C-alpha cells in the first residue's frame, strides 16, 4: 500500500508515497506548493488552480495529481510563479477585498500569497460586483464579497448526518456561497470556529470577535505563507 517512489521537483530528488497527492508529497519534503482550496486528507476539489505545476512538461494541479514513480515536477519556474501571481490577482479583482477593513487581514491565505508574490497591483481591472453579507446565523457572518469559491466549507462543515451547512447557489458569474439557515441557527461555537479556521479568506467570520490579534502578531505579518513547510526542509 505505501510503496515508496522517487520523484523530482525543480531538478531536486525526493521520495514519497505512490498515490499521495503531489502537493502533500512536496510538503513532506519541505517544499511549499501554494494551495487555497486543498485541505489534507479531504477529497480535493481542484478549483483554485493556485497549486499549478508542470508534471513531465504538462500543466497539472498538484492537489489532485497522484504521485507516480519518476515524475518530474516543475514548480518555482518564472512561468509558473507568474501564473500563480496572476491567479491571486484575478481573485483580488473578482471579489471585493478591502483588506484594511477585513477581520482576516494578516491571517488570510489569499492576502498571504499576495505578499509572497509581492503583488503591488493586480494586472486586471476591478469588477466591483455588489454582493451581500449574510448575517442570519447567530454565530457567524458569511461575507460573500470575499469568498473565493474554494468549497472547503461545503466539503468539511457538516452536521452529524453528513449534511453540509454551506452550498453554492446559481452558476457562472452569479455563483455565490450560501448557508442553510435552519442548520446555521443551531451551529455550535466549536463548529463556527472550525468554519472560520478552514476558510482561507475572510468570508466566514465568527460574530462578536474580530481584530483580536494586534498587528505584528498575525500569521503572515513577519513570515511569508509557506514558511512553516519550508522550514521543515530536510
Amino acid at each position, binding site marked *: 500500500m505505501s510503496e515508496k517512489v522517487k520523484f523530482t521537483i525543480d531538478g531536486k530528488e525526493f521520495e514519497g508515497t505512490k498515490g499521495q497527492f503531489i502537493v502533500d508529497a512536496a510538503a513532506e519534503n519541505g517544499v511549499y506548493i501554494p494551495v487555497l482550496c486543498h485541505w489534507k486528507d479531504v477529497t480535493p476539489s481542484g478549483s483554485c488552480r493556485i497549486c499549478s505545476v508542470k508534471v513531465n512538461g504538462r500543466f497539472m494541479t498538484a492537489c489532485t495529481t497522484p504521485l507516480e514513480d519518476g515524475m518530474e515536477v516543475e514548480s518555482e519556474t518564472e512561468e509558473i510563479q507568474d501564473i500563480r501571481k496572476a491567479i491571486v490577482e484575478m481573485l*483580488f479583482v473578482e471579489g*471585493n*477585498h*478591502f*483588506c*484594511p*477593513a*477585513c477581520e482576516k*487581514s*494578516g491571517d488570510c491565505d489569499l*492576502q498571504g500569497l*499576495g*505578499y509572497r508574490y*509581492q*503583488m*503591488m*497591483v*493586480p494586472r486586471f*481591472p*476591478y469588477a*466591483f*460586483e*455588489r*454582493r451581500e453579507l449574510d448575517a442570519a446565523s447567530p454565530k457567524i457572518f458569511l461575507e460573500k464579497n470575499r469568498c473565493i469559491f474554494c468549497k472547503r466549507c461545503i466539503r468539511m462543515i457538516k452536521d452529524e448526518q453528513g449534511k453540509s451547512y454551506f452550498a453554492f447557489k446559481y452558476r457562472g458569474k452569479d455563483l455565490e456561497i450560501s448557508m442553510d439557515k435552519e442548520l446555521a441557527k443551531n451551529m455550535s461555537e466549536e463548529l463556527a470556529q472550525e468554519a472560520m479556521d478552514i476558510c482561507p479568506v475572510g468570508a466566514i467570520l465568527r460574530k462578536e470577535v474580530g481584530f483580536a490579534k494586534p*498587528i505584528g502578531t498575525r500569521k503572515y*505579518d*513577519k*513570515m*511569508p505563507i509557506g514558511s512553516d513547510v519550508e522550514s521543515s526542509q530536510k
Partner: protein
Amino acid sequence: MSKPIIATASLAGCFGCHMSILDIDDRILKLIELVDFNKSPITDIKEFSQRCNIGIIEGGCCNTENVEVLKEFRDKCDILISLGECAIMGGLPALRNGIPVKECLDEAYCDGITVGENKEKIMPNDEELPIILDKVYPLHEIVKVDYYLPGCPPRADLIWEAVVALVTGDELKIPYELVKFD
C-alpha cells in the same frame, strides 16, 4: 545637477498616506537634501510652478476634481506613483462601488438614521461642487501609473526605500514585512 522635484496630492484619501510620509521621522532631513518639493500639502504649494520628476498620489478618484488633479499630475510629472490602497484599488471609499450613487446620496442626505430634518430632501448641488463619479476609481484605471506602493498606510520605510531608490537609481530590494495591504 539640480535635485529631483517631488509633487504630492491627496485625492479620495484620508491623509494617512501623507502622515506615513512624515513617519520617516528624522530622515526627512535627509530627504530635503535629496529632493525638492513642489505642489504638495507638505509645502502648502497649491499650484505647480514647474515640471516635476516624481508625482506621489494618495487616494482614488471619487469626483470630477480628483480626475482633474490626477490628469494634471500625469501631465506635469515624469513618474507617477500610486501611494496606498485607496490609490491602488479605491480603498474604503470604494465600498460604495456597486451601490448606485442615488442610493448613497439618499442615505447620506435624506434617509440615513443620523440625518436631521430634511423634509424637502435637499442634496448639495451647487455648481461650485465637483460632481461625484458613478464609482470610486483606482488611479491606474484613469491615467498611466508607473509604480505602486501598497499599504493602509504604506509603511514609512517602504516609502523611504522606494523614493531613495528612485532618485539614486539604486536597486530596490523590499523586505517582506514592508509590503502589506493593511
